[in-house]
């Protein structure tokens, strides 16, 4: 009897304790329950090895900064639920096969529904994996080759100024800095895009009163010695060299070669990079009459978001580095679109994104467009600056407004 009473008392005390403690337990707070953080996983296709890694490793660093900055700002809230951004990177190895392998891994193994990248002509390789699975892709650059961006890529959005937009910036810069230029040689990496870009570049230049002389001078992306290209350009009778898509080192070696052969003609490089990088390769002596598209640290008119990015990159990496922000823009715009749609369904996000007119980017206000240029209104164009390299010194040029038709 005594034993029975003790057990009864024990049960009663336990019950009372539990009943009293329950209301005080965290999970009982509805507000805290609603704010429990989840993860929005975004796949990133970047070339961390191979010839394109000189560009894309910087992009990956900037992508991680985009993730950190978004998460510091509270991540993203969808229907009351908070999400922190998580990036899952796959190395494309600077090959189309690498892109396909990376895309397959992200889509089928890691089950992501949103992907940022890859850049340029690499993105066409991911189309066959991503589009059938309705993966929403935010690509960072386009070279207008089939399969990159168009009516057959309904789930793909271009989130940074690309070939056409950069050409507009480059031509505008050329007219501002070298107004007397009337004829140019056109140089472009032979990455399969030349037949598609040729008529577009010529048209944009013609609209500004500049004539392209002869055929586009193409070179393989892996080219090391640019002497033959420089030789052709130095004997040509044109006023300037208009360098299309390529890496800054391509343009730098061409500039160096032209100057070594005694040609003083201006070189306009419409792909983005840093003037100091070009100077490092071309050498101070050859660094003259050169324009390159891209932001510069501490330049006039830098938007606050970009200033913050530049400051943080400088603090992290300890040196001024070229700022591309292509994949940064892609991740940023993608997250903004998801937030606007208040859904993780890729079709819902796509439909909402198509209706947006503007998205704020580090470069300033970006405008959606591209129906005429790409055949689909999925391109985000934004203001972009240029830099001038002259007399061995780099200086800031101006900001150029860009609206892709």
């Amino acid at each position, binding site marked *: 009897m005594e034993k029975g009473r003790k057990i009864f008392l024990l049960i009663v005390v336990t019950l009372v304790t539990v009943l009293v403690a329950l209301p005080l337990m965290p999970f009982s707070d509805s507000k805290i329950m609603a704010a429990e953080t989840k993860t929005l996983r975004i796949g990133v296709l970047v070339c*961390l*090895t*191979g*010839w394109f*890694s*000189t560009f894309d*490793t*910087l992009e990956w660093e900037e992508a991680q900064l985009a993730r950190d900055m978004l998460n510091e700002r509270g991540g993203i809230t969808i229907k009351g639920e908070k999400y922190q951004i998580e990036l899952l990177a796959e190395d494309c190895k600077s090959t189309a096969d690498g892109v396909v392998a990376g895309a397959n891994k992200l889509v089928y193994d890691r089950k992501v529904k949103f992907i940022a990248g890859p850049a340029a002509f690499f993105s066409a390789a991911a189309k066959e994996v991503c589009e059938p699975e309705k993966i929403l892709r935010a690509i960072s650059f386009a070279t207008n080759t089939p399969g990159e961006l168009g009516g057959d890529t309904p789930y793909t959005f271009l989130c940074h100024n690309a070939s056409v937009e950069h050409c507009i910036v480059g031509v505008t810069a050329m007219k501002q800095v070298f107004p007397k230029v009337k004829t140019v040689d056109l140089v472009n990496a*032979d990455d399969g895009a*030349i037949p598609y870009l040729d008529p577009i570049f010529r048209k944009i230049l013609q609209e500004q009163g500049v004539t392209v002389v002869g*055929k*586009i*001078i*193409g*070179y*393989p992306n*892996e080219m*090391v*010695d640019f*002497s*033959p*290209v420089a*030789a*052709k350009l*130095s*004997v040509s009778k044109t006023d300037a060299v208009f360098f299309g898509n390529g890496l*800054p*080192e391509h343009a*730098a*070696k061409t500039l160096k070669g032209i*100057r*070594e*052969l*005694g040609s003083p003609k201006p070189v306009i490089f419409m792909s983005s990079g840093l003037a100091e*990088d070009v100077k*490092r*390769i071309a*050498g101070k*002596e050859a660094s003259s009459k050169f324009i390159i598209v891209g932001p510069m640290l501490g330049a006039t008119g830098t938007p606050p978001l970009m200033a913050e990015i530049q400051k943080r990159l400088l603090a992290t990496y300890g*040196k001024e*580095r*070229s700022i591309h922000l292509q994949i940064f823009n892609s991740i940023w715009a993608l997250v903004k679109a998801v937030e606007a749609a208040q859904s993780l369904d890729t079709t819902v996000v796509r439909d909402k994104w198509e209706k947006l007119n503007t998205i704020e980017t580090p470069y300033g206000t970006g405008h959606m467009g591209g129906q005429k240029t790409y055949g689909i209104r999925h391109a985000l164009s934004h203001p972009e600056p240029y830099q001038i390299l002259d007399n061995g010194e780099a200086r800031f040029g101006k900001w150029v407004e860009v609206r892709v038709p």
Partner: protein
Amino acid sequence: MQLTLITVVNVLILSSMYILVALGFALLFSIMGILNFAHGAIYMVSGYICYQLAVEWGLNQWVSLLLSVIIIGAFGVFLEKYCFRPFFGNLKRTIIVCIAIIIILETTVNVTVGTLVRSLPAFVPGILMAGMISVSAEKLVTFIIGGSLLATMIWFIKNTKIGQQIQAVSQNMEGAALQGISAHRISALACALACGLAAVAGCLMGAIFNLSPFMGGHMLLKALELVILGGIGSIGGIFFAGVLIGTLDATLPLFIGGAASEAIGLGVIIIFLLFRPQGFFGREAG
């Protein structure tokens, strides 16, 4: 006329660059029978070592080149003892080891130094002009160094005691050992020499072009082309091979744009080998 003159100069300069790059590879492959696929990666690392010494630490650039040659030469000795000697005669294993070395070196540089754009300052700044021709002083110096090293290597192999020992070991290792020649020591020396030559090429090319963790692959391909075209067993043959490939690479892009010029260049090499499989001066098999 001006384009022709410029192209002639380009042919000479490019040929000498390729010969310089291929010299070390040829020494090991043609003479010692060691297929060192890591030659390109070693060439790349030496450029970065020179950059670290000259640009980051402020040493004299020529002294940095010399130190780079010594460091990479010592690495060559290590390579021979631990990577090539255990697998001597086994081509497949040697290739696997070389691939491993390439991946290790490229990844190490990629992770530690990064892919940020870098270039060595010119060893000899300035541009030399003569009539319609102008050429950068550093390319001219590279031309002179490349030619001198080739001539020196040919003389060394043929006329010095060590050179003859290298030839003896390459022809018959056991026979050479019976004559009192230390095959391992000679092999290590050849490797050190080959890596040292790669270092010279890496430092000079790092100033003419730019540095990248993946810059070795292209030059390894060129070295392989030169050695095969020149003929196995012939150091002198790489001179003619270098001139042929330099001519193709400097002239074809003038007429054929883009990647097609590289493809056609390789096509010409293949056709040549179909008619003369042993290359210019190689030994016929069998």
